[in-house]
């Protein structure tokens, strides 16, 4: 059995990755996450300059999940290279840098700065962050803008280019197609869903910006449906994200058409989640007699 996959020559040794924003810069989970069983680490979103992020509170727990409004807090690309890459280079997982910005030029600057950096294996382009006023989700809900940013970044790197898609859109197939048409190597779906919690005492939203991004088991069926849809609209690999807290959830993503998965906020509750899911998928594939990831996809076709 071989559950590895490839993207532009990069080998994902495990179909399980850890999602951007939930693993920091990987060092935070040193000794807790077994990176030998993590195919790829998707870093915290990186912007050209450091960002302090949104005011507190940034989190609120919800039924079967949580809302976050971190606001792309990160160290900026320069400090990322000097302070965060040394550890990322040491782990066996691929390092996919999640890239964010307010303008096209922000994305271009980050990719240009990181393209030649040793240890950076590829880019996941965050056109779907619901927690910033500019860029982010506004970009990711317009297929023409997704096409434009994909084209511009494709011209700047020969490394894997993954577009992380927003579910806050009527037809996620359109943004996926736009990314594929302009040379994206894969799409990740989905980013968080827009959500709100209102405090009955103050009668106002708990989060300072009103809304935040919903993650956790609550979004599993939404994510599986998106993966199913997108994998039938594009021929590039689909990376399934959303609601995975058990290996069975990850298998659903793979059966829906994903070539690999990312575990997200489930790691917060259980730092061992990625390795448990890696082991669970492997055992299930063995039991079912599946030989590779394509065998998972054969059922739905």
């Amino acid at each position, binding site marked *: 059995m071989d559950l590895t996959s490839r993207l532009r020559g990069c080998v994902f040794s495990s179909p399980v990755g850890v999602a951007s924003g939930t693993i*920091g810069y990987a060092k*935070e989970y040193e000794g*807790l996450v077994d990176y030998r069983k993590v195919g790829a680490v998707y870093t915290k979103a990186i912007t050209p300059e450091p960002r302090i992020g949104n005011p507190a509170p940034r989190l609120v727990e919800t039924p*079967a999940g949580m809302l976050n409004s971190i606001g792309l807090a990160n160290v900026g690309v320069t400090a990322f290279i000097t302070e965060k890459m040394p550890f990322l280079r040491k782990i066996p997982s691929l390092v996919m840098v999640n890239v964010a910005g307010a303008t096209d030029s922000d994305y271009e600057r980050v990719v240009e700065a990181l393209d030649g950096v040793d240890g950076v294996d590829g880019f996941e382009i965050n056109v779907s962050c619901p927690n910033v006023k500019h860029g982010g989700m506004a970009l990711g809900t317009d297929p023409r803008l997704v096409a434009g940013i994909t084209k511009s970044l494709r011209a700047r790197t020969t490394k894997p280019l993954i577009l992380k898609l927003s579910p806050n859109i009527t037809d996620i197939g359109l943004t996926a197609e736009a990314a594929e048409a302009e040379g994206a190597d894969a799409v990740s779906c989905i980013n968080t869903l827009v959500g709100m919690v209102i405090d009955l005492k103050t009668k106002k939203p708990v989060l300072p910006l009103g809304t935040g991004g919903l993650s956790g088991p609550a979004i599993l069926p939404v994510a599986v449906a998106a993966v199913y849809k997108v994998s039938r609209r594009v021929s590039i690999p689909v990376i399934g994200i959303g609601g995975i807290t058990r290996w069975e959830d990850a298998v659903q993503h793979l059966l829906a058409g994903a070539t690999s998965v990312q575990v997200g906020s489930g790691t*917060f509750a259980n730092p061992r989640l990625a390795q448990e899911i890696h082991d669970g998928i492997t055992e299930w594939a063995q039991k079912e007699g599946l030989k590779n990831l394509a065998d998972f996809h054969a059922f739905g076709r």
Partner: protein
Amino acid sequence: MKQFDAKILENRELAEDYFEMFLSWPQAVRTPFPGQVVSFWVERTVTPFLRRPFALASFQPDTRVASVIYHVRGPGTHRMAAKRPGEVIDTLGPRGFYFQPGKGRNPILVGGGVGTGPMVFAANWLASKGFRPHLVLGYRSRTLVPRLTLSTTVRLSVCTDDGSEGFHGTTVAFLDRLGPGEVDDAFVWACGPNPMLRAVHFWAHPRGIPCQVSLEEIMACGVGACVGCTVETTDGRGMVRVCTEGPVFPSEVIRWT
């Protein structure tokens, strides 16, 4: 920091809806200090979804027994209160910057509500180091005042908002009444609701009394990855993580709002 199964040794009610859970602390896990935090994955449920962070309330180095004092107020703590000795609880920790003595030989420790645990740990720890701490604890009413196990050299003063036990008023109103002899060579450590911590800071700071506070924020990961538990500082660091740069801070670096 490690993720480990801690065996529950005892889970007893200290006051109305306040419990103390005693845990066996494995040899392989580092010795915790007052102010440090653990988080529990109480059960493998989807709701509640996240771990629950608590500052430790005690650690016995000889028996390697640790405890947390918690207030039953939501689904996570309800499930904790239902746990019985012999069960295990998925624990992540110990974590964070802890209280450390600096200048001063006269500790005044101020705790309110769920801030009781770390202040009890701090008081007993300081007593074991030869200090004679004054532990000032505040509650709404006498039914919430926990029965605590304190070293004989700890002086306890209880304050209640309704005057049903001890001093009638807040912990800071109590501090205001301390005589000069009682605040000589003092340092203050505090944990509790933010308004109390703010008031303690503005009591200690003008008097030149060094003050450290342990902050509480909602946390998702508890290890520094999610950047959800941030607090604004005045020392040029901007927003810092309570779980990583804290939870204990010198009170003057916090931007009190």
